[in-house]
């Protein structure tokens, strides 16, 4: 079914961006409402077309963008997968936009914030709607730009400026991989960039090529979803305003990598899926351990995001892409909520160091409650959203390999541990002394979205729960998994263990390790607290060499290449010196002789040339006479 009005969905926020960037200064606080209304309109439009994805009929709108030996089409497509993304983005987006009106209140670049915010939403919606890799890539890059602009939003802080640049460049490395993947995919025989054509392509193309293409595409996902080798930008991205962290760096953009894998899943071969699984697993475990040691609220949440994204990628790696998508959705809600609640804390106390926080449960009851709900949901308390999605992944893992199941179960325990540690130290214990006014609950415009998201974080998982699963229907998967009691029991056990450990070690500060293991434990702790020194490693191995190479080539350019030019110029000058000598000593003599003669003649002529008219006339008359006499 062809529907041009699909273009309206991203067009609303895009229009809001255009208005805000051009005239935002004059709109004042109305700029926020413009962004919210635009997003709400996109949400409304998305909801009105619900029947098509459920009926399994995709809505399509295509147009020609480029021409060459073949026309290059861009297109929009709404099917179950993209519809889910649309709903997630627009619903969370509009709630976060409401929240931001309070959070960003009084900022000198208030309208600019909402401009970028709208552009991001437009790009994200475009990405979800894209029916081919080209448009997806375009939106992908635009999101990267918005991420950059929003991370560096408070650019007066050098750390924020540096973080934005780091984010952009790191993801760009991944993007080049994705770009190369697109290039390959476009020119393998029978290649096509249309998602709908990918299953056919996968059958036609040789497996090694396919592995290469899928790995290149996965590289893009690694960059955007901050998977292991390219994860370094995400924790730094917490320099941005907290609503941005919530929307872009937790709920939507970073999940786009997972969405990309889901979209291009037919291309992935077993070999490349192994790579995906490995990367995801490394990220999951490794980020989880770092999250245990971080002392900054937002950084804990950032590493938690990394870990959860790793979990989704693991699910992709074992082929359970519907489960991964399911976790993406539930994660979007509870992680956005966690960030917003953390933002509420930061807004109230102007503090994000765990050591300087505590006992906020009394002064900020709403924030405390929603934070608890989100934490429990993420930890997988039975009945809450996170439980259902994590359960689906655990089930799939058990089918894949038992060892993986146990590792993921450990990961689940770790998840509970770090989030419980965060919650307890933030909201319980002795209230930290505060400078100035006492912390207070955030205004209604901020707490209402919190409550709304809390409802989502608690209940949204039910759409994928066994027995009632419109979610999987939307994705066109009918092998609905049943409720597996042992798995549920084990995951609850992991939750209990994790939270107990967090209570004892993280909150009460008891060291449970036997004495002989303590040095090793401390070393491990240090390693994790320094993020395994990955940043430092990159600095040494990558960034310094690149800059050094730039400097080297620049010197080479100046000294060698330009030196060659100037050198040949100098040789030319020298040659002309020699020639000049010859000219001066030999040729000039001859020339001078001619010159002297001429000058002598000239002197004679000059005597004639008196400048007096009568003189000339006399000459003329004499000449006439002479001519008349001589010429017959």
């Amino acid at each position, binding site marked *: 079914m062809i529907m041009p009005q699909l273009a309206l969905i991203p067009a609303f926020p895009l229009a809001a961006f255009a208005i805000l960037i051009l005239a935002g200064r004059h709109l004042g606080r109305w700029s926020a409402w413009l962004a919210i209304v635009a997003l709400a309109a996109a949400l409304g439009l998305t909801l009105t077309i619900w029947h098509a994805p459920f009926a399994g009929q995709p809505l399509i709108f295509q147009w020609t963008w480029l*021409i060459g030996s073949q026309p290059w089409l861009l297109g929009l497509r709404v099917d179950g997968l993209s519809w889910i993304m649309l709903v997630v983005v627009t619903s969370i987006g509009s709630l976060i936009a409401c929240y931001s009106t309070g959070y960003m209140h009084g900022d000198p670049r208030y309208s600019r914030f909402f401009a970028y915010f709208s552009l991001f939403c437009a790009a994200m919606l475009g990405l979800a709607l894209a029916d081919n890799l080209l448009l997806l890539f*375009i939106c992908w890059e635009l999101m990267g*730009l918005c991420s950059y602009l929003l991370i560096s939003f408070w*650019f007066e802080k050098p750390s924020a*400026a540096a973080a934005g640049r780091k984010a952009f460049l790191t993801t760009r490395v991944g993007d080049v991989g994705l770009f190369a993947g697109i*290039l390959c995919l476009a020119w393998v025989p029978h290649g096509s960039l249309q998602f709908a054509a990918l299953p056919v392509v996968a059958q036609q193309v040789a497996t090694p090529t396919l592995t290469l293409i899928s790995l290149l595409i996965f590289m893009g996902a690694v960059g955007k979803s901050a998977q292991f080798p390219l994860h370094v930008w995400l924790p730094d991205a917490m320099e941005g305003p907290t609503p941005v962290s919530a929307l872009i760096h937790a709920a939507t953009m970073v999940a786009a990598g997972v969405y990309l894998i889901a979209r291009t899943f037919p291309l992935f071969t077993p070999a490349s899926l192994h790579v995906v699984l490995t990367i995801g697993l490394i990220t999951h475990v490794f980020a989880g351990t770092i999250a245990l040691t971080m002392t900054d609220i937002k950084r804990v949440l950032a590493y938690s995001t990394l870990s959860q994204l790793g979990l989704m990628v693991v699910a992709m790696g074992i082929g359970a892409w519907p489960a991964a998508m399911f976790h993406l959705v539930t994660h979007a809600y509870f992680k956005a909520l966690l960030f917003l609640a953390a933002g509420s804390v930061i807004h109230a106390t102007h503090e994000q160091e765990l050591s300087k926080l505590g006992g906020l449960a009394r002064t900020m009851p709403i924030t405390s409650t929603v934070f608890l709900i989100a934490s429990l949901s993420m930890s997988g308390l039975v009945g809450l959203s996170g439980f259902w999605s994590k359960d689906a992944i655990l089930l799939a893992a058990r089918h894949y390999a038992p060892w993986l199941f146990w590792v993921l179960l450990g990961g689940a325990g770790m998840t509970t541990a770090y989030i419980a540690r965060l919650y307890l130290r933030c909201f319980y214990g002795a209230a930290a002394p505060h400078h100035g006014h006492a912390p207070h609950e955030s205004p209604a415009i901020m707490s209402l979205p919190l409550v709304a998201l809390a409802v989502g974080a608690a209940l949204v998982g039910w759409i994928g729960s066994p027995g009632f699963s419109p979610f999987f229907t939307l994705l066109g998967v009918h092998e609905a998994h049943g409720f597996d009691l042992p798995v549920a029991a084990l995951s609850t056990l992991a939750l209990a263990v994790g939270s107990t450990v967090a209570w004892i070690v993280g909150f009460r500060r008891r060291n449970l390790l036997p004495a002989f293991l303590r040095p090793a434990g401390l070393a491990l702790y240090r390693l994790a607290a320094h993020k395994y020194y990955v940043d430092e490693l990159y600095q040494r191995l990558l960034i310094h060499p690149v800059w050094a190479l730039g400097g080297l080539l*620049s010197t080479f350019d100046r000294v060698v290449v330009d030196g060659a*030019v100037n050198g040949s110029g100098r040789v030319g000058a020298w040659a002309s010196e020699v020639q000049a000598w010859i000219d001066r000593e030999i040729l000039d003599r001859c020339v001078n002789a001619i010159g002297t003669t001429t000058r002598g003649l000239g002197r004679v002529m000059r005597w004639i040339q008196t400048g007096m008219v009568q003189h000339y006339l006399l000459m003329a008359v004499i000449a006439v006479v002479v001519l008349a006499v001589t010429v017959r």
Partner: protein
Amino acid sequence: MLLTGLLLLPLIGLLVILALPKTAVTAIRSVALLATGAVLLLSILLLGAFRSEVAAMQFVAQLPWIPQLNVSYHVGIDGISLPMVLLTAILSFLACLGSFSIHERHKEYFALYLLLVIGMMGTFLALDLFLFYIFWELVLVPMYFLIGIWGGGRREYSAFKFFVYTLAGSLAMLLAILALYWHASPRTFDMVELARQGHAIPLALQRLLFLGFFLGFAVKVPVFPFHTWLPDAHVDAPTPGSVLLAGVLLKMGGYGFFRLAYPFCPDAAWEFRWVLAALGAINIVYGAFVALAQTDFKKLVAYSSVSHMGFVLLGLASFTPEGMQGALLQMFSHGLLTGGMFLLVGVLYDRTHTRELSAFGGLGARVPRYAGLLIFFSLGSLGLPGLSGFVAEFLTLVGAFQVPEIRWPTVLSLIGIVLAAAYMLKVIQLVLLGPLNKKWQALQDLTLREWLSLAPLVVLVLLIGIYPLGLLHVQEASLQQLIYHVTGR
């Protein structure tokens, strides 16, 4: 007739300026602006009247000039030259607006400026090699004086280097032109006729001819290792000079490949495509690396030009519709983007009299409009989708990637994309972000005139980035014909 108008209008402006007294600065400026504005209008009319489905030359005008040598005044345009003509018209108008910040010797400046416009236009319009060469060389003279008189820094050195370097390249081209002339039967400078005879030239001679043309154009493009005049000339040229230098003069080199080197020596061009591709990749990566290390704003942008022009070479080497479209579009887009960048550098230099990147910092808070535009053009340069640079680079890479012989250079040049982001973000970070440097507390934001000279570029960059089809349709037929001419496919 229309095309002759493109040449006559600036000429009339030039004569009027020469007749005006030195002191009538306003009148001189208005005449120059009117002349370039009229050229712009005329070229837009041309675009309207252009029939994009026709591959052959259009609006042809031919008058015998030196019949003894079979030289004629012969002008015409096709889908390859029309974008270049448009680019020249747009940039000369906007740079003329930007020239209002010139403070001394107005009469000479604007007279030379219009002479430069005539030269550039003529190069893109000429269909007679003799005429082409005259216009090609005509460009050098005013540019030499623009850099040498109104420039800064080591302007005499740079102007001289520019002049001699380019002239040396042109001599190689002149040799090739003369060889072509003597080889053609009947002897002619008619480019259309010479192109028709292209395949008839023996391959050995074609190689030599191609080498000659290559040297001439490689200096102009510029191709590594013939590029070192470019940073010096750019840095020391006055702002409008840099704009035209980067925006139009470099394109003359690329255009030369399309119009001369490829049609006249098609077999040699086909044979040497891997050389072009390799040099293109080197340009992209090398230029980007060197740009990364620069501390002078203008020099950085100059090296970014080296990098970006590499894409033109890469696209040219592909002989695929995508690649050629990309190369031509890259020339257009790079003209707009670099033109904008240089105008912005000039704005900053006018106010602060420094171009050291480290001397700035935190300007984003002080001059938000300027910051917005600088970010816009930087993003365009680093190839952000939605802006013109991306379309061009995408087409180029897609086109080049499908040719097995030049696949590895293409893959190599992907590094350039990351590096482009690195040096452009470096600029943004050093100039706009961070705490405000106290020295620039009273910096003034863009004035209306500066805003007017930049806004059209913004619109065009966006337009091409979002709807490139318009320009691609214009180019399509002629490029298809060229590809068919060279490859027979």
